[in-house]
């Protein structure tokens, strides 16, 4: 029993990171129907910005987190502006291929700038482990969880209770009608990229602290898994991304605990295949007619 709870704690920590990344995929998809394949690389950049902010500029955890989020918000909007906006009216496949191209570009630029060697994250928190009834929880897990929950609450508030959030939902439903309301659709799309990228950056810093290891190719696998999480929850559905992330995290930890850790990455794709076969709209997704 303790072992189960222990794995659950680990799974939820990992899952909340997947959830943070998945939110960016799902928001961008919801608004422009594009799978932003560069999203995992933005997460990687976030991890590196946090790393430099802590190591070179001696920032503590929270300021470093905010700097990483701000830099990636700017990066995300720049990518949208330069790479995706010119293709807004072309075929989806053109935009998709461009997204893959942007992903390679960022990854290779990072390899060039920072070498492929993994780096160990600076120690912002001395590790402290607490034992609660035989279950071990450390302060890093607590940080990950509280930061993830706090960010999700903020996001929930923005999306549901602010004017820009209402505009985001309106554009996701019907961009032309949103224009007729005086909504600047381009600005709303920029804002969505900024928001999603900032969340990915936060996930990057949290991962750096949790696993104590970052490298330029680190975005690929979590990026894919978070994408699966977004599909699992119902792509375009914001609470779905959080739920999908948690399910993915717990499933991955469970698979590692029960089988061999070599199956760790396969579980994501098994989930993807099952969800596409059984409930393609995702756990919280509605079966909606495709927009024409």
């Amino acid at each position, binding site marked *: 029993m303790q072992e189960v709870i222990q794995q659950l704690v680990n799974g939820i920590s990992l899952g909340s990171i997947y959830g943070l990344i998945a939110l960016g995929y799902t928001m961008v998809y919801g608004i422009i129907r594009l799978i932003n394949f560069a999203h995992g690389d933005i997460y990687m950049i976030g991890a590196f910005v946090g790393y430099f902010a802590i190591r070179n500029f001696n920032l503590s955890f929270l300021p470093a987190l905010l700097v990483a989020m701000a830099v990636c918000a700017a990066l995300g909007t720049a990518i949208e502006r330069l790479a995706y906006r010119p293709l807004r009216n072309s075929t989806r496949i053109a935009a998709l291929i461009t997204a893959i191209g942007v992903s390679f570009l960022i990854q290779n630029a990072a390899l060039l700038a920072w070498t492929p060697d993994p780096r160990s994250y600076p120690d912002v928190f001395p590790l402290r482990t607490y034992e609660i009834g035989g279950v071990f929880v450390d302060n890093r897990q607590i940080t990950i969880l509280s930061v993830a929950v706090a960010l999700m609450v903020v996001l929930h508030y923005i999306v549901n209770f602010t*004017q820009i959030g*209402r*505009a985001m*939902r*309106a554009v996701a*439903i*019907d961009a*032309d*009608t*949103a*224009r*007729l*309301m*005086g*909504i*600047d*659709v381009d600005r709303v799309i920029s804002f969505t990229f900024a928001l999603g990228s900032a969340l990915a950056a936060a996930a990057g810093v949290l991962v750096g602290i949790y696993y104590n290891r970052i490298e330029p190719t680190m975005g690929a696998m979590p990026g894919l898994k978070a994408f699966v999480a977004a599909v699992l929850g119902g792509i375009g559905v914001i609470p779905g991304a959080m739920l999908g992330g948690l399910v993915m995290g717990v499933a991955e930890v469970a698979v590692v605990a029960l089988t061999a850790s070599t199956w760790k990455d396969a579980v994501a794709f098994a989930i993807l295949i099952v969800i596409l076969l059984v409930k393609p709209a995702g756990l919280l997704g509605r079966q909606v007619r495709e927009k024409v």
Partner: protein
Amino acid sequence: MLTVENLNVYYGGIHALKGVSFQVRQREIVTLIGANGAGKTTTLKTISGLVRARNGKISYQDRDISSTPAHIIARDGLCHVPEGRRVFANMTVAENLALGAYHRRDQQGIKRDLEWVYELFPRLAERRQQLAGTLSGGEQQMLAIGRGLMSHPRLLLLDEPSMGLAPLLVREIFEIVKQINASGMTVLLVEQNAHMALSVADTAYVLETGRIVFSGPAREVAANKQVREAYLGA
């Protein structure tokens, strides 16, 4: 207030508007009638900036808006209530109305207009927390108009507000259009229901396959023999 000159609009190879010209004067109700596919919706979309004309000119309050982005036009008091209502289905009535006032900052004015909209459409007031997608067709039309009014427009473009509604509701909607106009708002009304449209309008234009074929005071257009045969079933 609005002058459209020699508008030509294409959808790929389809020549949808072939030199459309007309005028809307302040405080008037102008109607644009015509059969399905005549180009009525295209005309409104071109005015509100959702569709671009290949050539021609649109002046609104003496300014050329032919290449102004749609959201800027909307902020300038020209409001287009689109065909088929297009309410935001998974948002509440109140949220839809708030979006209508998206670009406004005058909280007092927004509050006044909200009260006015709820007065015009008491059924919306009763359903303010209901999701727009769960409203009946008539209520959705009321919401679409109410959402438009929330932008406090000077010129209101209405695209087939009577579409798919029961006769009693159609009458109710047209009554409201008259009230809105009486409050000082200029209205450009697009309709297939020529009979009702001509009964409320001051001026009428008849659109046929992308061309204006008749125009004049609504009463005269309604009395025209050809119009009666083609559009009024008489």
